[in-house]
């Protein structure tokens, strides 16, 4: 797949985001797009964002639930990178018109206190390297019309990374069993779903560890100060201007995201 025009594809994805217009799946044109090449396209997307002034501030996991993996007919999650222009500061609104088809989902976010790299990294190492965990809302936005994509497409599209916000006060994860931490997710005061941390690959820190091991195979790692969104606890919901989504977590606090 070395003949694939990665930069050109990356430009098309970035242009789709800039113009807020979805495009057709890449796999329509490049049906042989494979796992490694899809991540190389993702690299090109992230590099293009960085060369236009953005900074990588963290990463995120997607397809971390068994249900979603079965739905996509895959046996693993995926990852992408967060840039500073995706940050929605605590208490600020998400501006829906900045996106193509924004959706929100509740997550647990890890703020790393130390670098993490290596193929040996497990959930315990992640917890040890984490300074704080936060209740978080991931704003995802597929650059493919109607969220119609294959696993390879969504990897290339930087795993639908688009926005994120953290809430709560920041909690030391030591002494908390994140597997069991309960979450209720509401839209406009109505309960959408409940879950517990184990919905994310059995343990949210295990999801972060998986990302570290994947990166290790490519000679990379995660860095102190980065925020890692560990994966959705529930289904994503579509949002429109005027909506407010709230994720309440036992032990971690609440994150609220108004939609403008």
């Amino acid at each position, binding site marked *: 797949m070395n003949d694939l025009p990665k930069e050109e594809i990356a430009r098309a994805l970035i242009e789709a985001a800039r113009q807020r217009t979805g495009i057709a799946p890449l796999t329509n044109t490049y049906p042989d797009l494979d796992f490694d090449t899809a991540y190389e396209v993702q690299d090109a997307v992230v590099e293009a964002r960085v060369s236009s002034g953005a900074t990588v501030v963290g990463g995120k996991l997607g397809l971390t639930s068994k249900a979603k993996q079965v739905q996509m007919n895959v046996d693993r999650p995926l990852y992408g990178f967060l840039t500073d222009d995706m940050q929605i500061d605590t208490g600020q609104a998400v501006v829906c018109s900045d996106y193509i088809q924004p959706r929100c989902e509740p997550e647990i976010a890890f703020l790393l206190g130390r670098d993490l790299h290596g193929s040996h990294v497990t959930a315990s190492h992640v917890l040890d390297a984490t300074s704080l965990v936060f209740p978080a809302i991931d704003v995802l936005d597929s650059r493919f019309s109607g969220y119609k994509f294959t696993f390879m497409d969504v990897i290339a599209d930087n795993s639908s990374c688009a926005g994120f916000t953290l809430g709560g006060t920041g909690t030391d994860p030591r002494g908390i069993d994140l597997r069991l931490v309960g979450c209720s997710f509401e839209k406009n005061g109505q*309960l959408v779903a409940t879950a517990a941390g184990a*919905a994310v690959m059995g343990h949210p820190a295990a999801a972060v560890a998986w990302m570290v091991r994947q990166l290790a195979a490519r000679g990379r790692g995660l860095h102190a100060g980065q925020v890692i969104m560990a994966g959705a606890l529930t289904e994503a919901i579509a949002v429109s201007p005027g909506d407010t989504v709230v994720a309440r977590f036992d032990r971690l606090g609440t994150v609220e995201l108004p939609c403008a």
Partner: protein
Amino acid sequence: MSSLLTEAEAQHHALRLLEARDSGVAIEPFTDAQPELGMADGYAIQTHLVNALLERGETIAGYKLGLTSRPMQELLGVDSPDFGPVFASTVYADGAELAVDAFIAPRMEAEIGVVLAQDLAGPDCTTIDARRATAGLVAALEIVDSRIKDWRITLADTVADLASNGAIAVSSNVVPIDGFDPRLLGMVFTRNGEVVATGAGAAAMGDPMATVAWLANVLSPLGVTLPAGSIIMTGALHAMVPIAPGDVFRADFDRLGPITIRMASE
């Protein structure tokens, strides 16, 4: 709303459910023949069934709430939960081994159980009243079962059938509600070690303690007070899960600990 059934009809339907419980052979839904039957008819039948079971020497250990989640309420076209008594003979301890063929079409659910420290009565019971009367919460599993063939239930059918209760298992670790919010209490449900669902207390009508207040209020016009020591099963935190012989189900609750049921191998 009053029942469309005469006492004799309600009693007849109750006896058919009793036969199904005894024989293990499910019956056709009552609403096949009488689609107009609703919630009041279901409770009229349930009352006769409960009386028949009490006459046999059964005792009531508590109650279960059903249809406490919005998806289940939408499925059955209602906007409230339902309830039925839990008989002491169907209450098991943590680690119990049960036989699949003791049931007709069993499914497993993980729930928060509430143990009352004081009597609780409506009609104006609030969530705060319920909380004040509570000794604590317990990790719980419910085996739901339907004496109605293939779970083809409408509201009247499941209400009549003791809200589809089969058996429950409760932890002996009664944890006072102190410094935490039952709505956010997290739960991880595994079948044979694999996570099949997760949830939190809010899945039960928004607040498990609200289901207890609701129950006290609906029992009030029937002249029933929830006695101290009652166990209230506050409703499933996830969609019900199928059961096969040899399965091991475990619900792990934050703050409450685990509860396990093992199904006997055939």
